[in-house]
């Protein structure tokens, strides 16, 4: 299972280049607002034209979760919305505590709840390749942590495009957008010191001389503990 990209995406006057390979596991692509993350995510999902090559191996189904979940809503009731993803509505709604609201318009949910619903749908579909554009924005910390745990146990390829600075999952690789290009930084431990968008807690751990093994807050705390003996 593999995704290999050697492509150029043009959007108006802006262009973004990507030369990278993603295998099974969880990959974080970080970068500031406006650095081309969304364009790249859409192109990888096949929703935006690109030049060059995008090769897949062992990938049957690809799904993307948009940055703004309201752009992905197709039904006017929650249960119909879930059915539009070919999912069993009641079970998933009850796991989200939304069973009583099954007849409500999805656009009447609070933004965080709608985001959580959208993410639950794409994860439940269990695609081979899952692309997530800013999955953490608008979620509260409990929902962010639960999302991280679900992503960590997924079996396919998951690529997260995000500038999240609070709660992150344990990842297999780290990349960053820089000068209109995706720069692969490699495995997390080597990558963290070179990661320009590192969350404040990782920066603080580095500043104190610790070497976190991964990108989660726990990793920063563990590294500090080890260092302090």
């Amino acid at each position, binding site marked *: 299972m593999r995704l290999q990209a050697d492509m150029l995406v043009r959007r108006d006057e802006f262009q973004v280049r990507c030369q990278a390979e993603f295998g099974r596991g969880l990959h974080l692509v970080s970068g500031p607002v406006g650095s081309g993350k969304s364009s790249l995510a859409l192109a990888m999902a096949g929703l935006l034209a690109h030049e060059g090559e995008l090769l897949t191996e062992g990938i049957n189904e690809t799904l993307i979760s948009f940055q703004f979940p309201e752009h992905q809503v197709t039904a006017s009731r929650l249960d119909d919305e879930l059915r539009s993803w070919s999912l069993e509505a009641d079970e998933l709604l009850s796991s989200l505590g939304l069973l009583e609201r099954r007849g409500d318009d999805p656009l009447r*949910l609070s933004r965080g709840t709608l985001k959580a619903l959208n993410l639950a749908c794409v994860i439940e579909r269990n695609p081979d390749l899952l692309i997530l554009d800013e999955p953490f924005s608008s979620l509260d910390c409990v929902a962010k942590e639960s999302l991280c745990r679900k992503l960590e146990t997924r079996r396919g390829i998951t690529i997260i495009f995000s500038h999240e600075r609070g709660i992150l999952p344990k990842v297999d690789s780290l990349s960053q957008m820089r000068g209109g290009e995706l720069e692969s930084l490699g495995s997390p431990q080597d990558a963290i010191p070179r990661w320009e968008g590192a969350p404040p807690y990782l920066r*603080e751990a580095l500043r104190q001389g610790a070497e976190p093994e991964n990108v989660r807050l726990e990793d920063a705390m563990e590294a500090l503990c080890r260092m302090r003996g």
Partner: protein
Amino acid sequence: MIRIKGLRHGVLDIPLLELSGSLVAVIGRNGAGKTTLLKLIAGLEEPEQGSILIDGRPPRELRVGWMGEHPDRTMLFSRVWDEISSSLRFTRVPVAEANERVMVTLESLQITHLRDRSISSLSGGEKALVALAAAMAGSPDILVLDEPDSHLDAPSAMLLQEAVLNSSCQRLLCTQDMDLASAAEELLLLADGKVISQGSPEKVFQGREESCFYPSMWRLRP
């Protein structure tokens, strides 16, 4: 001072609440009623039941600076200068005075270099700072910010947070960033529309070390 009495509105059920901090942060899970409460305090919605008074007056009698989660969706003008001066122009402030206040606001947020730019040429972080400037330029009695940082990257969020923390007017914001919340004077923790805890960050976060609501930077303290 914000005084709420017998409030019932949507998910919110707040019998009595007094907020006196000059920077108040509202925190809580998605759907807890944070945005609804902010909209009521900003006067964007009227309570179904109960009353809200800010320094003794209803919100709609006050000058309110509002900034939502998606500032680029609520901007009215295509140029930075026009957007920031809009509230002053709408209230017929003389041009010379309005221009001066826009300049002072730009300087206080350190975004003077953006004055002649078009809104569409701004990055997300710059748009957020312009939206904050537009909300502040009318010298509001209260500044209400609904998750202003939730779509920003770390450097832009830092700039915005610094601007909010350094502002001298009365501020009320909601955020999912507990490190920002921990810098507020007063915290309000909501769950299912009800007030769960209120007070200083030390008081509200006390005993929550096991929950993700505890500020991450506090965990790294030696």
